[in-house]
């Protein structure tokens, strides 16, 4: 008789728990999700003016949203951490996706897409510098932040800049070449655990 009572009791307890637990768990999980600070890690691998924008725009915006952000710069991405960042260039050569438009003159002139063949671009000395000057002017005209400003905003907002130690050595750079905000010089084994725990991880 006693045994039967216990099993009935067990069933009732189990039933009740099944009702209560999912609600309590859901509430607790929602609380935890709410309290958690989102995080993002970015691997920046490009060292041109155009490709400098995505990592800095995403990093500064995420920091403004209150996220923890780390940017791991490797290979040409190390250029983004150099003290003087004003030398970044953009190359239209071999980039059919890049519109070539003039940032000055009347509207009809500005809307022309100068479709210059690669072989011509490659043959004109200083073509890259010209393209870079024109792009910088376009950036100013459009009210887009310049790269040094964006990087400053990132640093101010607490974005962590990490340099890949291996490429620093490979390219013959020294730590004096980089801004003091670079907090760490580490390798892939240090970066991957950060990326594993991040909500967003991007390769740029």
């Amino acid at each position, binding site marked *: 008789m006693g045994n039967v009572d216990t099993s009935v009791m067990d069933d009732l307890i189990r039933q009740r728990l099944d009702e209560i637990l999912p609600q309590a768990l859901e509430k607790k999980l929602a609380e935890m999700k709410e309290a958690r600070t989102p995080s993002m890690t970015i691997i920046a691998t490009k060292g041109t003016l155009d490709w400098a924008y995505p990592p800095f*725009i995403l990093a*500064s*915006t995420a920091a*403004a*949203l*209150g996220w923890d952000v780390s940017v791991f710069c490797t290979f040409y991405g190390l250029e983004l951490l150099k003290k003087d960042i004003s030398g970044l260039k953009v190359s239209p050569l071999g980039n059919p996706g890049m519109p070539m438009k003039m940032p000055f003159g009347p509207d009809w002139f500005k809307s022309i897409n100068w479709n210059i063949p690669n072989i011509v671009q490659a043959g004109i000395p200083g073509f890259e510098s010209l393209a870079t000057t024109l792009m910088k002017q376009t950036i100013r005209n*459009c*009210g*887009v*932040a310049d790269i040094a400003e964006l990087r400053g*905003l990132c640093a101010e*907002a607490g974005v962590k800049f990490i340099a890949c130690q291996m490429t620093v050595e490979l390219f013959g750079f020294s730590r004096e070449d980089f801004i003091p905000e670079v907090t760490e010089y580490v390798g892939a084994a240090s970066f991957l655990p950060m990326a594993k725990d991040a909500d967003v991880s991007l390769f740029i």
Partner: protein
Amino acid sequence: MNFDKELDARGLNCPLPILRAKKALNDLTSGQVLRIVATDPGSVKDFQAFAKQTGNELLSQGETSAKEFEFFLKRK
């Protein structure tokens, strides 16, 4: 609507209006209101997302003239 501080983000493009707003909010105390004027059409959705993510309340938003957007953010 009353506000405690004003941010002129006209002529600025993504993500500058958000970054400047975040900075301006830091100077306010909880419950104070920031008015932002922007011309970037992308800022309309961006400020909604910013408010949702950061918990600073977007009290109202609207278009002031042909191409200007106005936002009132209350610091949490």
